């Protein structure tokens, strides 16, 4: 038996979470370097269709963990089911997408296995037979190469967007699908249905120009300055999480992992440091302009145009110049 990489894909109500393809692509890349085989597992209830969809990819096997107690996610049932699969199949490496659901159960699963999770990775290195995982630390100011200090199974989660889902290689023939039976006790948590809060007033995903404010805006009354810039550009106003946490802008204008994911033509970041949770929501922008007084702010890593300086000095003349330029055209 060759060593294997087990990818735990994520589905909700029979629909595959697209970020699962990224994790499969990551596993296939690691497999090319290591020679290991890639297997996948689907967890839920009545998930044959999802399993069939996953089996179209180039994999050695797809396991189906199908049980009534897995219909609605609970950490107890998911950890118990996957612990049984991992203990039986003994994969070398277990990979999961870094979703909210995975964050909820993966550390529990790892603890039950006497292992740890290297979480929220953006890539990996395979140097001299050693596998290292790259993750951001200190809010993106540093990257770290992290290795496992225990025997396999090793468990890691990949950040949304770390790999390209469309790079997940299709198989020549459908992958064999195998049912894996699990025994589950009743879960302690009793989850209710998913719901959305009152309709989202703004759909930032359609905006072509977004002016986004972060902590650098300092005070609520300064939001008006950003609003004027957005108006001059004909764009929408958005913000990083702390601004919405403070109530300075409504939550539906928040960009990032807990807010909206946008890909405008222009993303103008004002006083945003660029923590990972924010970056995942806007790195699809075609152009990023960042204004920040801290020259080491991580937002500059992904900026096309950088202005290191005080936004309160730069934005007022910028608004004037934009108005002049628009008047000329």
């Amino acid at each position, binding site marked *: 038996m060759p060593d294997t990489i087990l990818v735990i894909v994520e589905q909700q109500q029979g629909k595959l979470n697209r970020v699962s393809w990224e994790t499969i692509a990551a596993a296939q890349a690691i497999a090319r370097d290591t020679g290991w085989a890639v297997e996948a597992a689907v967890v839920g209830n009545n998930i044959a269709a999802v399993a069939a969809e996953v089996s179209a990819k180039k994999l050695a096997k797809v396991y189906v963990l199908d049980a009534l107690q897995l219909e609605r996610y609970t*950490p107890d049932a998911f950890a118990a089911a996957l612990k049984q699969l991992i203990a039986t199949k003994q994969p070398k490496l277990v990979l999961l997408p870094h*979703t*909210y659901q995975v*964050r*909820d159960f*993966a*550390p*529990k699963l790892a603890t*039950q296995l006497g*292992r740890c999770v290297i*979480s*929220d990775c953006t890539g990996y290195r395979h140097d001299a037979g050693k596998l*290292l995982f790259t993750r*951001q*630390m*200190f*809010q993106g100011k*540093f*990257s*770290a*190469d*992290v*290795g*496992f*200090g*225990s025997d396999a199974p090793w468990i890691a989660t990949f950040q949304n967007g770390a790999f390209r889902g469309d790079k997940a290689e299709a198989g020549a023939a459908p992958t064999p699908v195998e049912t894996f039976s699990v025994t589950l006790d009743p879960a*302690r*948590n*009793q989850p*209710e249905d*998913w719901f*959305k809060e009152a309709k*989202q007033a703004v759909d930032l995903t359609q905006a072509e120009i977004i002016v986004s404010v972060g*902590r650098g805006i300092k005070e609520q009354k300064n939001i008006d300055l950003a609003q004027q810039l957005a108006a001059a*550009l004909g764009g929408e106003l958005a913000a990083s999480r*702390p601004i919405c*946490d403070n*109530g300075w802008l409504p939550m539906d204008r928040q960009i990032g992992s*807990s807010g909206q994911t946008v890909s405008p*033509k*222009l993303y103008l970041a004002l006083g945003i440091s660029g923590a*990972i949770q924010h970056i995942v929501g806007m790195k699809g922008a075609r152009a990023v302009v960042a204004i920040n007084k*801290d020259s080491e702010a*991580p937002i500059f*890593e*992904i900026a*096309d*145009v*950088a*202005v*290191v*300086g005080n936004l309160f000095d*730069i934005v007022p*003349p*910028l608004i004037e*110049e*934009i108005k002049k*330029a*628009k008047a000329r*055209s």
Partner: protein
Amino acid sequence: MKILVCMKQVPQKDAPLKLNESGQWIREDVSYEVNEPDAYALEEALRQKEKHGGEVVAITSGPARAQQVLREALAKGADRAIHLEDDAFVGLDALNTARAIAAAIQDERFDLIFTGLQSDDYGFAQTGVILAELLGWPHATIIMHLEKSDTGIRVKRELEAGFFQYVNMPLPAVLTIQSGINKLRYATLIGIKQAKNKPLRKVALAEIQSTLTPNLQKIERLYVPQKTKKTETLEGSPSDVAKKLVDRLRNELRVL
């Protein structure tokens, strides 16, 4: 309700960080502050106590400097504090940190343990979930609301893409609290004064060391991220910069 709040001291948000000689950690001579998500966890604990009575206990692990986090918690209204005090706590992975906390509270009987969503330094987002597993308690993460129910508690979890979900769960339980769940209070002068007389128990590394193992994950190298994008930096006076930026917006990015 008796609530434990796990809090951490992290480098200040805008503190300039430098690598140390080993290249595996930062130089520690920077300014520190309370990990912001933990401030929301503390606030929620204080609000629950105001509603239902009980006790709020703050715990941290870290060097002597980390005591400041506990002092702030006591000043805001926590009843007492526990400090796992040693420089070595900074280097523990999430599993060992959870073990240390579990060992430090083994003689206590809490109904709830709160942690922040994640820390601004490591960003594991794991310690609370692991702690629950070590204690044999249920947990729920990314909590935006919490109320008592007949059988335990009912919590509102934040999910992705704007969804939420209520979960009913028994006590005792561990919750990781989402930032923005409440509005933070400031410590009052009288609170700061009273904090000086509140109990603060210190736990030495030696007392809990037998529960720890070598870290299961190890930072081999810490470094400034490689740039993936070519960035043009605009310089000059504010009005020069404004002119240059408008030129780029118009002629290169073509959005004007």
